[in-house]
């Protein structure tokens, strides 16, 4: 195999932390290498170190990175810059922040061509060609647009077009699909596959998502604590992992467990243990009693101000976020509300919590009619519904300890006397943390621990219903199972009802009793989880399920 990139003993340090530990590997021309690992495994650091684009706080201790007989780590800055964008290109993680907000798409794409001796007209034509190539509709008009005028998927197409304009030999992709919805992810992966086939450029694809790596790559490296734990063909690593860590990681991924279970395997379990199909105690769902939550014919409309204030005849744009949505949740039941960003599922949750005023419809929580509730009624209702926020670290105050924050709902509800440290420890213990965490601050927590703290706080008021907004978003697959297990366990012990809002189909299978699918503000399908997965009625539901499912490719090379 013709070697394009040869990395020898590369080591990178962030202050006292050795993030990448003397890593060596080689990449052939036209090869597609996936690097998987949990957050903090050093995979992105490794990628950015290759062309010295690390943040200032990082330092490369040692190593050589040979790219076509040139050591990138020792190349003068000018020579290195000449390689960037021409022979080595990038696609970075978050399409919402990877394009400059103040410049048009066209300006930014033409800037990438700044070294070429072409006229502005020619550069423009090249840029439009590239946008056409990534199937962006109406490319000439998009050139004049600013990034905020495009959707996330469109922006990621622009990033890909930018990366390929000059026909690079090597493409470095840092989690290019992580911030996208499942169906968009499939589209972008298809695009990357086509690109790789048509241009023949080598790709290093970093992801924490095992499924996407399996779909796209020939070869995969597994990283853990800055070391390469396993390196082999996709077929070998995914079917016969040699490393214990790899085996655990693969086994934990909720997406790879087809049989529904309320106890997902975790990293701590022995690899030999098989995932048992656990259904939980019989009679958990009290379907015969009147429902905890009943939403009927809910409408939510947002108004966007136009040219002039409405009072003096200005046009106001109406956005129908939620249209005629009805559903109910029984005691002890989990209902999953699924759909992509913008489908209106968050607006439904916000209406239940009284953060958004619905235009029409009723929301009944137990015996209380929330849409007609006064201040006192809302105050009481908020003691019965708790929110588990999507961004757990962001929804905790960075300046207060967990003990102070976990019991805060009690103080807000005028039950200061109960807001003791003992109560805080009790709640933390319930959420699977212990008293050692009481005095910690949010920045000292991992993603999974912050999520648990969020659960502890949601339990403070002993609610009847928990609204869990994307409880696994941004979590490694190894921790997703733990969080789902905890929610399932708490439900069984406390008789909680849960409204699970997510676009992660993999966890829905293991946590939800019933599923409601939202599309463009409406519920297009409802049914028991098993039926939805086995025989989806709506085309969109089928697409969501297919998008979450990544087949193991049968590579000839394997």
């Amino acid at each position, binding site marked *: 195999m013709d070697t394009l990139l040869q990395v020898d003993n590369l080591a990178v340090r962030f202050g006292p932390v050795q993030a990448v530990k003397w890593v060596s590997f080689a990449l052939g021309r036209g090869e597609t290498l996936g690097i998987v690992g949990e957050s903090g495994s050093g995979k992105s650091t490794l990628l950015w170190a290759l062309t010295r684009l690390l943040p200032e706080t990082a330092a490369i201790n040692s190593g050589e990175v040979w790219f076509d007989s040139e050591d990138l780590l020792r190349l003068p800055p000018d020579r290195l810059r*000449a390689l960037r*964008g021409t022979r080595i290109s*990038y696609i970075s993680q978050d399409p919402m922040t*990877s*394009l400059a907000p103040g*410049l048009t798409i066209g300006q930014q794409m033409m*800037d990438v061509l700044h070294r070429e001796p072409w006229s502005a007209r020619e550069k423009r034509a090249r840029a439009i060609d590239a946008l056409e190539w990534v199937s962006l509709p109406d490319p000439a008009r998009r050139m004049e647009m600013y990034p905020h005028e495009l959707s996330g998927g469109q922006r990621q197409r622009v990033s890909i077009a930018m990366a390929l304009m000059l026909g690079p030999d090597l493409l470095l992709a840092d989690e290019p699909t992580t911030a996208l919805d499942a169906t968009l992810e499939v589209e972008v992966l298809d695009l990357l596959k086509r690109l790789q086939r048509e241009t023949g450029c080598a790709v290093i694809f970093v992801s924490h998502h095992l499924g996407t790596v399996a779909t796209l790559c020939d070869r995969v490296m597994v990283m853990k604590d800055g070391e390469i734990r396993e390196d082999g063909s996709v077929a070998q690593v995914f079917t016969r992992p040699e490393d214990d860590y790899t085996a655990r990681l693969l086994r934990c991924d909720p997406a790879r467990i087809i049989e529904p279970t309320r106890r997902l395997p975790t990293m701590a379990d022995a690899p030999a243990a098989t995932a048992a199909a656990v259904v939980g105690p019989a009679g958990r769902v009290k379907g015969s009693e009147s429902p905890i939550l009943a939403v009927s014919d809910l409408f939510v409309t947002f108004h966007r101000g136009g040219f002039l204030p409405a009072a003096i005849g200005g046009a106001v744009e109406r956005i129908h976020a939620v249209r005629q949505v009805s559903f109910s949740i029984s005691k002890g039941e989990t209902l999953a509300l699924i759909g992509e960003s913008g489908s209106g599922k968050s607006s439904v949750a916000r209406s239940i919590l009284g953060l958004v005023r619905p235009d029409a419809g009723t929301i009944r929580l137990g015996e209380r009619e929330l849409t007609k509730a006064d201040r006192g009624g809302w105050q009481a209702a908020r003691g019965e519904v708790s929110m588990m926020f999507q961004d757990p670290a962001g929804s905790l105050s960075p300046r207060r300890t967990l003990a102070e924050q976990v019991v805060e709902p009690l103080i807000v509800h005028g039950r200061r006397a109960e807001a003791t440290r003992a109560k805080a420890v009790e709640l933390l213990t319930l959420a699977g943390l212990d008293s050692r965490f009481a005095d910690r601050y949010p920045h000292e927590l991992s993603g999974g621990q912050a999520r648990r703290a969020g659960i502890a706080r949601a339990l403070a008021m002993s609610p009847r219903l928990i609204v869990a907004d994307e409880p696994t978003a941004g979590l490694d697959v190894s921790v997703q199972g733990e969080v789902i297990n905890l929610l399932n366990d708490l439900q069984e012990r406390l008789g909680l009802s849960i409204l699970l809002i997510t676009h992660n189909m993999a966890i829905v299978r293991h946590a939800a009793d019933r599923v409601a699918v939202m599309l463009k503000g409406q519920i297009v399908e409802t049914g028991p989880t098993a039926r939805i997965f086995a025989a989806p009625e709506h085309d969109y539901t089928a697409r969501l399920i297919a998008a979450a499912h990544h087949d193991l490719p049968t590579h000839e090379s394997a």
Partner: protein
Amino acid sequence: MFGYILRRIALGCAVLLLAISTLYVIVQAAPGDPASAMLGPKATPAIKAAFAEKLGLDKPMPVQIVRYVGSVLSGDLGTDLRSRRPVTEVLAAHAPYTVELILASLLIAAGLGIPLGCAAAVRRNSLFDQAIGLLSVSLISVPPVIIAIYGMLLFSAALGWLPAIGAGVGEGLGSRLHHLILPAIAVGIGWVGYIARLVRASMIEVLSANYIRNARAFGLPELRIVYRYALRTAVAPTITVLGVGVGYMLGSAVFAEIVFARPGIGKLMYDAVILRNYPVTLGAVLAATALLVAATTLADILNALIDPRFKESRE
């Protein structure tokens, strides 16, 4: 975009109307009575009453306010009690000197502060950055009056390079600019430090953004990254602060105009307060308020023009 600008201007006018009413009440509530001040200690109560009646000071306060606002809107700010000229005429004669002083000070603050802050952010934690940090803090800490007096002593008295007093009234443009240098430095130099710190902080934040790393990953020249990609975004908070800064500069301008004997709004205001010349005091404060409202409105509009996210409603 156009709608936003209109709304912003309408809001500015509303603020100004509120300010006019408030100002009128504050000035009237201040101790001392214009009739006694103007007519001298020997005026009889009858003469004073006649004088008050002539100015409408005997009416109830709400009536006075409405009358005052109405006359302001029709362009009548009353008559200068000293010179007997219309206040608008007096203001028109003084305003240009203050406006040019504020503009020159803004130019110094932004023209020096933005490049310094930008350079400090690009070479952050270097010796150069620390030197600029020290310079900034020193400039912020020295009161404008001190700079004015020592500047005068050094450049006018000792070196004779710059005129000490006056504004070059009735002379050519060159002389006017020459007279402007010292006062503008006195008013604006403190802001150089402030703006430099601000620009440095927002530049550092922007330079760590994803799209900056992306631009580097595509091999764009560093200068283009700094000016085209980073500074454009980083300069927005500075514009807002400079808009509000005009208010503070107006405060400093009062000192500067007194020290340098410039016939501006500040000097006019000072003299009118001493003499309890109500119409002129009100007019001068009003002019200063209008200047401040105009500056903040302009800053908002400028920010909207820079930020493409506002262009959504252009169609």
